[in-house]
């Protein structure tokens, strides 16, 4: 019964519309949201374990425009990541948002975005991916401008213009591609390989178009400036969007495009990946440099996301088995780490309403558990050996070496230093500055917020110690590609 894969996409969207229509009051709205996200998570687990190579055409208008869902294992991994983190974020945002007046609209779009992101994970061809890609922009836009202030509207408009510009580039690439290959389905190893090689720079042009198009969402350097300005949104939105949903779907689409559509031999033949490599390296360095002297905590984390995304793109651009695994691993680990960091910063903002670095002296003594998990997460991000950040960086470095360009590991190490440079000051000012510990009473955020933060920190550590369960799964996907 192939219909099962449509359910995890439709369920959140329907609950979203349900919220919009019946406008429930505070607590039964919370129950609806929590139950639907948990149900969704269980459904996806069920699909992963029992359903193998199942596919479903939602609507087939004509030979190019068919909405076709075909979750392979990369798609399943991404979907599990999204739905798991969505549950935690729902708990977090219920407490964070409190009960303002029109939260129904907020949670409506919140649920629709989850459905659309899982749609991206499950999409079977480039057109479905493009459709969900556009819907993602439209459904995340109201979340970004939740505050409704003039500044939020400006940031929202900027976000919209960037993503529509990216979407048009992607559309241009898809049209050119379709005129050559007449089909857009994802096939491991790429469909272009089979088509006789017309002229290489035509495919180079398509590759660059698609890379930049999806790169806008993945905060590639020239198009990254919408990410920090979208920090004006409330923390659950900015943490979810800029750690899990929007940015990662851009990366996921890039991965799909390079390995499942164009195929890496074709790109290598057209030397497209060398140009992109330069761009990715610039992203990594620029992200970390800018993050260092950012005073606002959320902006600092935003720039760190840009540089971490550069890591993942590095994995996609170096066509090596281990670097692919490293990229995918970092995609997962970065999501969990960054969401913890954002949660902690959000907790600080919500309870102490302090946002600048100077204001949070001695916060560690007031909120020990939150800041402890913040330190654990930042250690993972820097990539100190036992933690999960190190595992993915390790694979990336090996991939770089196998490919033969030596400056990849150098760049990795350099940016690991830079990550330390912008994370450690936060920890040090939190714990070692400010008034002595005994005369400060402890005021932890209530457990609706605290539980997700601690859970995530523990999850990071476990993933660090026992990553090979994940590695084998990604390895099975990667084996088909190389």
């Amino acid at each position, binding site marked *: 019964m192939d219909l099962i894969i449509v359910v995890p996409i439709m369920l959140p969207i329907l609950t979203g519309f349900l919220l919009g229509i019946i406008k429930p009051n505070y607590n039964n709205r919370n129950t609806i949201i929590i139950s639907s996200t948990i149900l969704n998570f269980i459904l996806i687990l069920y699909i992963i374990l029992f359903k193998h190579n199942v596919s479903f055409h939602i609507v087939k*208008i*004509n030979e190019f425009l068919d909405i076709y869902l075909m979750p392979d294992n990369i798609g399943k991994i991404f979907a599990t990541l999204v739905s798991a983190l969505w549950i935690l974020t729902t708990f977090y945002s219920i407490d964070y948002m409190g009960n303002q007046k029109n939260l129904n609209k907020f949670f409506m779009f919140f649920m629709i975005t989850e459905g659309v992101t899982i749609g991206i994970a499950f999409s079977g061809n480039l057109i479905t991916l493009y*459709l969900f890609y*556009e819907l993602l922009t*439209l459904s995340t836009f109201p979340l970004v401008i939740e505050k409704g*202030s003039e500044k939020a*509207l400006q940031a929202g408009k900027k976000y*919209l213009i960037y993503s*529509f510009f990216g979407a048009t580039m992607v559309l241009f690439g898809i*049209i050119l591609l379709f005129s050559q290959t007449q089909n857009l389905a994802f096939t491991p190893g790429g469909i272009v390989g089979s088509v006789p090689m017309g002229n290489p720079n035509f495919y180079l042009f398509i590759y660059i178009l698609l890379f930049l198009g999806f790169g806008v969402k993945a905060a590639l350097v020239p198009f990254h400036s919408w990410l920090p300005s979208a920090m004006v949104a409330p923390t659950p939105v900015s943490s979810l969007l800029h750690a899990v949903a929007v940015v990662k779907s851009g990366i996921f689409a890039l991965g799909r495009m390079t390995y499942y559509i164009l195929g890496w031999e074709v790109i290598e033949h057209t030397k497209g990946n060398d140009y992109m490599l330069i761009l990715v390296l610039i992203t990594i360095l620029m992200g970390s440099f800018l993050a260092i002297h950012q005073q606002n905590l959320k902006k600092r984390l935003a720039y760190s996301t840009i540089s971490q995304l550069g890591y993942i793109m590095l994995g996609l651009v170096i066509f090596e088995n281990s670097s692919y695994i490293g990229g995918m691993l970092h995609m997962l680990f970065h999501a969990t780490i960054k969401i913890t960091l954002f949660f902690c910063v959000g907790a600080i903002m919500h309870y102490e309403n302090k946002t600048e670095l100077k204001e949070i002296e001695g916060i560690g003594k007031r909120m020990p558990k939150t800041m402890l998990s913040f330190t654990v997460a930042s250690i993972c991000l820097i990539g100190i050996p036992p933690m999960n950040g190190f595992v993915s960086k390790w694979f990336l470095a090996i991939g770089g070496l196998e490919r033969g360009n030596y400056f990849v590991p150098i760049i990795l190490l350099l940016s690991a230093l830079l990550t330390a440079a912008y994370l450690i000051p936060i920890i040090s000012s939190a714990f070692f500055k400010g008034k002595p510990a005994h005369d400060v009473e402890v005021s932890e955020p209530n457990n609706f917020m605290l539980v997700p933060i601690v859970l995530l920190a523990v999850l990071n550590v476990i993933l660090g110690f026992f990553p090979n369960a994940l590695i084998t799964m990604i390895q099975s996907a990667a084996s088909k590609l190389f």
Partner: protein
Amino acid sequence: MIKFIPLINILILILFSFIILITKKEKNVKLMSFASNIITFLLSILLLTRVLLEDFIVLNLGKNNSLLGIQFYIGSSEAVISLTFTFVMLMILWFSNSSVKKEVSEIRISFFYILINILLASLLGVIYSNDLFNSYVFIEVSTLSACGLIILKDKKENIKATVKYLIMSTIGSGLVLMAIAYIYSITGHLNITNINEVIVSSYQSHQNAVLIILGLFTVGLGIKSAVFPLHSWLPDAHSSAPTPASAALSALVIKVYVFMLIKILFRMFTYEIVNSFIIMDIILLLGSMGMIFGSIMAIFQKELKRMIAYSSVAQMGYIVFGIGLGTISGTAIATYHIIGHAVTKSSLFLISGLMIEKTSSKKIEDLKGIGREMPITLGLFTLGAFSMVGIPILPGFISKWYLSLACIEVGRVPLILIILASSLLNVLYYFPIIINGFFGNENLDGKIYKSKKIELSRLIPIFFLVLSIILVGAFSSKLINLF
């Protein structure tokens, strides 16, 4: 009997409009015009099924040999277009029987229904007729009834818009008549199929004569269908006319002349002849300029209806672009876009009419925060805007997609940039309305409207139109390989 449907269609419409002339009570004026439209709609469904079964129908009125008599030729594209037009007109009529009272003074209501009936009859006439002079007469009738519709409100700007429209369209029809005279002098026939036989053999000898004819037809019909440089009458005419009339005008009337241009270019002069002349590149140029500048001008508009009018100039650019490509797939997309755009544009205009009635001001600034007051209407408007901007599944996207494919087929890849650029420009002027309508706190609070509740019954016709947008999108593949 089915063979006679086109004639019966037109006859019923004209007959009922005359009967309305006499009836006094307003209620059965509406009843009659409604009845005539429903009959024509059902008949055109019958016609479409008949055409789908056998190939095209040729209907000779009067003399059998087509030398003298009027001839109707109904191929698959004509049948589908006439079905869409009758459907859209039915919805406009349904919408107008509640909203026309507010805009048009009491005594002129019956004139409104008469003109709408005659307009639809003449539009169907132009689509069906295979005879040049006969379609010229129908064009004149449609222009005059369109002028009548614009002037119904009888205010200052209406009269100015009508004068401008009348003068521009008389120039257009003068050129068209001259072109028909020219064709007649070369071929001695007035019937498209006969002319085709003669032209195919003899066009080498009359090289520049055929060029002049093509030029006259393109400019003449271009003026009437508001192709880019010749469109200056459209914004005034469409923004000052009453809402149902402006919806009918911009969705139906300007499409018919372009369809006649398609008939002339591709059925009379076959593809090879037309492509051997430079006229095709000029049309392509006109189309691409229209796409870009139409949207640019729409961005700077302050009033809602003028903005939508300029956006139909841009959409006409798409259709002319499709023709300019000069391939079979190009024309198929142009016809598909005629249908897609007719449905979307009429729903957008009707919704904007409702919104203007609610905020009682034409300016776009006053539409801020309308999402709170009329969520459903703005929701429908968003759907229409999505189709214009080109979100997949909706017809806007499909015609953009196929247009660019046709461009690649012809080998002019940079033209795709123009298509995509113009769809980006569409975003720039449709989305601010939606954004300010739904979101933004300072837009929403402090919004007090005269709480004229727009009762839902007025929304049903628009709901059907929006539904048909999705349907047109869904069945696009079958539609396209029909043409």
